[in-house]
């Protein structure tokens, strides 16, 4: 198609992680044309899925930084967002443990930070108070910071909810669309070329995570560099012999919050994460040393932690803007107007996301974008049925309408065929085994899909109308099965 005839978007957001989806969710409130370009075959496939899901309240960032501003702001928005967008949220609180006098000073510093950053309900408690709240905590803990308002979310579920709501309000979402070139036209608009198509837009928001600097470079912008901070994580079974209900951290170091034990919204736990800088942006493999560090870290918090309760290990990379004091890099480009960086979104990116989205909105407005309310805007999004949370009466009703809800596919997480079919046909439906897992939890439990994978494969093949050997595990070239036997 002739370029001039192409639709001119007001804003194109590049990158469908928690940052990019947060931005499109925010922009959907306004009467503008917005599109999201995501290079992967699903949203939230990079740093967002390799994340612990803690909505840090904001006691951590140094006062005066962008983080200190956006983290508390984002975190405060989560409880209402969870209601409007119907995603799971768990109010856990956080404790940051002190093991020495020096740590106790650090705890006091964090309490001061909290005050300056405007974070409420943060207090210093004694070791005994810690163990009163969490009986399995190490005797070596002398005291702790207790932040009452910390919540837990599943970052993928949040990103899906953001994206679905945006889509519902007219945002175009293009998956498997890798940006390959960006040019500025004579009329001042951008033309973005992907592996599939070209797009025209007045403004660009670069939320491309670990590749944000590479995307910016396509537009001739060389204002910052991104490197990945690699982190190992473990998933722990929901039956832990030493159960906990509060997120637990040791005292932080400058680059990392340390290895935490995190109770997740659905009852299992995460240990995360290690922190080492990597130069290979694609490397999300994990390593034995990192896993051992995680287990050692868990034992430091809970001495009787059962290593046998680990059901999965994985890793992710958080995008770090170099030479930026570990702060986010969010601003309009100095050299190319109307190009907004939403980059360097390392921890606490999940917590900050709604705050970042509003901040980016304001940057766009400052850059001249006219933001009028969208007529007929719908702030809600309904989550699909979560069968495991239904009462017997509700279960009967749902099964009477669709007997596929009476067929359990994943026994560990109690996921029914009905839920999997619904997840496939959702607005941003699942079309891979891992996509089904992230949306429904099928395969996420202790058997790690040993019992249900063949059932999920069959359902995917049937619902997508493709042969089973064409069903992808996750990435584009990831067949689970390689044909038929004789």
């Amino acid at each position, binding site marked *: 198609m002739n370029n001039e005839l192409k639709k001119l978007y007001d804003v194109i957001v590049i990158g469908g992680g928690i940052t990019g989806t947060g931005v499109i969710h925010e922009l959907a409130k306004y009467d503008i044309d917005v599109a999201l370009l995501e290079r992967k075959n699903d949203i939230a496939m990079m740093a967002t899925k390799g994340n612990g899901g803690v909505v840090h309240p904001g006691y951590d960032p140094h006062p005066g930084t962008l983080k200190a501003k956006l983290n508390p702001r984002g975190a405060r928005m989560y409880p209402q967002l969870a209601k409007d967008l119907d995603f799971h949220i768990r109010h856990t609180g956080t404790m940051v443990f002190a093991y020495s006098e020096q740590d106790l000073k650090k705890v006091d510093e964090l309490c001061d930070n909290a005050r300056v950053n405007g974070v409420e309900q943060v207090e210093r408690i004694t070791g005994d108070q810690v163990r009163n709240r969490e009986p399995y905590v190490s005797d070596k803990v002398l005291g702790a910071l207790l932040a009452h308002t910390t919540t837990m979310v599943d970052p993928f579920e949040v990103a899906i909810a953001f994206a679905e709501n945006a889509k519902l309000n007219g945002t175009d979402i293009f998956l498997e669309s890798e940006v390959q070139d960006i040019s500025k036209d004579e009329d001042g608009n951008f033309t973005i070329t992907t592996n599939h198509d070209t797009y025209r837009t007045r403004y660009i928001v670069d939320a491309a995570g670990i590749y944000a600097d590479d995307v910016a470079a396509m537009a001739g912008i060389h204002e910052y560099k991104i490197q990945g901070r690699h982190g190992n994580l473990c998933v722990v079974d929901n*039956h832990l012999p030493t159960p906990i209900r509060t997120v637990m951290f040791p005292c932080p170091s400058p680059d990392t919050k340390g290895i935490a034990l995190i109770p997740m919204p659905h009852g299992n736990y995460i240990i995360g994460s290690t922190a080492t800088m990597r130069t290979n942006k694609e490397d999300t493999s994990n390593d034995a040393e990192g896993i051992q560090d995680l287990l050692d870290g868990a034992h430091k918090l809970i001495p009787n932690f059962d290593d046998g309760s680990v059901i999965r290990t994985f890793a992710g990379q958080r995008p770090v803007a170099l030479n930026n004091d570990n702060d986010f890099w969010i601003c309009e480009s100095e050299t190319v107007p109307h190009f907004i960086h939403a980059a360097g979104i390392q921890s606490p990116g999940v917590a900050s996301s709604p705050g970042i989205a509003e901040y980016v909105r304001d940057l766009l407005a400052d850059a001249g974008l006219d933001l009028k309310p969208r007529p007929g805007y719908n702030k809600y999004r309904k989550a699909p049925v979560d069968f495991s949370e239904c009462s017997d009466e509700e*279960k009967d009703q749902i099964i009477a309408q669709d007997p596929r809800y009476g067929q359990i596919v994943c026994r560990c997480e109690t996921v029914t065929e009905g839920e999997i079919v619904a997840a496939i046909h959702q607005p941003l439906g699942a079309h891979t085994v891992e996509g089904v897992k992230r949306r429904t939890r099928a395969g996420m439990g202790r058997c790690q899909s040993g019992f249900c994978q063949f059932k999920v494969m069959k359902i995917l093949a049937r619902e997508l109308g493709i042969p089973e050997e064409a069903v992808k*595990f996750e*990435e584009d070239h990831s067949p689970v099965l390689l*044909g038929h*036997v004789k």
Partner: protein
Amino acid sequence: MKTYKYDVVIVGGGPAGLAAAVSAKKQQAKVAILERNGELGGILEQCIHAGFGLHVFKEELTGPEYAERFIDQVEDLDIDVFLNTMVLDITKDRHVSAICGEGVLHFEAGAVVLAMGCRERTRGAIRIPGDRGAGVFTAGIAQRYINLENMKPGTKAVILGSGDIGLIMARRLTLEGIEVEGVYEIMPYPNGLYRNIINCLDDFGIPLHLSTTITRINGKDRVHSVEVAKVDEHRQPIPGTEREIACDTVLLSVGLIPENELSRKAGVALDPVTKGPVVDENLETEVPGIFACGNVLHVHDVVDYVTTEAEEAGEKAALYAKNALKKSDASVAVHAEGPVRYTVPEFVDPEDGADKKIKFRVGAPIEKGVTVIKAGEKEVYREKKAHRFLPSNMEIHTLKCSAIAGVRGDLTVSVEE
């Protein structure tokens, strides 16, 4: 919501559930089997190789044939079977709730038999690092794909773990034209039955590498190679022994874990070693009226022994439901000692006049030894003939009731070299 009343509700329609159901029914109990899959037989349905039934039927059957013998009896005896029915909860007072395509079902049970079997240990549980692409399977799901789904999981495989399913699958893959580069075992001895090493590896020229493990899996989209390394006596990889092997498939046969999530909901106490319920000689758990048998109780080596155990559990459950199960308070504990890792049962009644079947496994191979059972300091049982003990073999010994009548103190089971 429908409510049913049964003397005995059996959770699981695999080999254990089937045998328990038949045996309970023969005691004139009203019996129901609740099975989550669409057919009875459990994992036997995908075990199309021969080797089942040598003890129970004195002939060599395939898995489906072995299951069929019991499924036929279930049909002949008119036992109620609920297929595609998943139990979601069991309470201490034996209320079982389940769902199926018709909705929620409730069962009031005189007695419950837990027969849910086991699951396979996964990559995550043994924490193999590397990339997380497609192509890593437990041996059991690979068996399912090939034998029942007619699908090919890969073209060149490395197998980790020398458990029986891994060995059987090494042969199965080879027969399907899928190259098996080798079987790797972290322990210095094989974990499967001796006959399977011969029949499945040696006969096909598949090498078994002991004291070797996979240290890394490579391939972001699909597996393209693994790194293996020799391990020391602490099972830690020895630097410098790493070797990279090109393959597109990894099969794991690294252990089985009894599936006791429902048992836990019912408040049943579990043994930390077997991961199965703590039971007495009637195979009754510490929750009265809830019995357990088969691989949900402890992982068995041969299905025939599952059958024998389940027949006993079914019978005892039926008697319990009719208030006819003899029970004395004189229970003594049975402890595992030395090389013995665990015992089933954990409690026996020395005064009830019945002989006791004691089952156990050792933690490491013993070239020559005898089983010895003591009551306090007093020896009450000594095996006559010395033999080899292997972790892969379940030992079953019968302790005469007369030998322990009147004993005080706990029993300890050990192996003397």
